[in-house]
């Protein structure tokens, strides 16, 4: 998928949820999360963006951390969703659907423009 550059505030809003979703597939490590997100069209996720977010998720109890020796490689920090993390993912996903649904409904509502005109204050 081509790496489209999304506005940074959109990315900030969605990244936490998408990281939790990536972890739902099973335990994985930081670079693999960044690579999976890039593959799904989020663009390059820098370490300076990803790890502070993971640290906040860990502090909230949504992520568990375990250091494991990789196959023939150095130790890796594996991250996995906790039960609280799965609950949070379900809640946030439902909320996100409601929110994006509301935004889309608003954007697709053809009567919005005329409503604004008819209800607006006109001092003339």
């Amino acid at each position, binding site marked *: 998928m081509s790496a489209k550059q999304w506005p940074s505030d959109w990315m900030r809003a969605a990244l936490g949820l998408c990281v939790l979703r990536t972890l739902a597939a099973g335990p994985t490590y*930081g670079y693999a999360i*960044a690579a999976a997100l890039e593959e799904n069209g989020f663009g390059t996720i820098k*370490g*300076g963006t990803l*790890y*502070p977010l993971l*640290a906040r998720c860990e*502090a909230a109890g949504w992520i568990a951390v375990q250091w494991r020796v990789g196959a023939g490689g*150095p*130790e890796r920090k594996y991250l996995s969703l906790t039960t609280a993390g799965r609950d949070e993912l379900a809640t946030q996903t439902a909320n996100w659907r409601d929110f994006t649904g509301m935004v889309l409904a608003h954007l697709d509502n053809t009567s919005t423009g005329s409503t604004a005109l008819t209800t607006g204050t006109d001092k003339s």
Partner: protein
Amino acid sequence: MTTSKIRDAHDRDTENEKWLEGLTIELRLLDVNGTRIGDAVATAREFLADSGALAEESFGSARHYAAELGLPATADAAKGVWGAALRSGLGLVGLMALGQTVLPLTHQTDVTVGFGVLLITVLVLAIIAFLPRLLPTIIERTLSHGKVRAFVEAAAGGMAVTLVFVLISLWSADRIVFSVPALPVFIVAVVLLIAPPLWAQFQHSDQVDPIVPPGSSSADTPRISIGIRLFLIATNWILVISSVILCAFVLFMDTLAR
């Protein structure tokens, strides 16, 4: 192609290790404990090895990243810095008092305390009191501007302070504020000199907070070499060693003057 890919891998690794060193220092300055620092540094190192990126490009400045991580500070870290400043302050007062006492004690006369000595003592204590606040800035300047420039700046600062002290001494040559018997002052000076390093020596083992790499306990961290151990002991007792040298020098000069 990004600049990180153009660079030679060896240069990149060297630069990344320097950045990781900076991250360690920044986290230390934020009073994060050694185990968490070990984890954060190993995590960043793992990501850099996987991505092949330059640390500065991927994580931003070490200072910004350390702050962004939001790791909790240890409760009594600030106490340690202020304790060290207090110990140094007491030791320096002891050293200055001993320097003023050694000749009157050998000649069995009173110690005369001049206005200049009092002023210099207050200035030295003020500098030590501000040192814990200045230390993070000094370390950051050393990291960003390089060790040579930091050394030159420190030497210039030291010379400026010494010049001020010399001018104060010249200006207040004969202005005596009070005189006291030499022996009690000598005893107090010796206590002030010896008590702080003695206390620090016994406390040292409790206050060590080593940086622990993930997967190992603090007991597994490599032991400090004998050279570094001796250096730490010498640093702790530096004021006592200096006072012995100072007293010997003063007595030697007095013998020559006779």
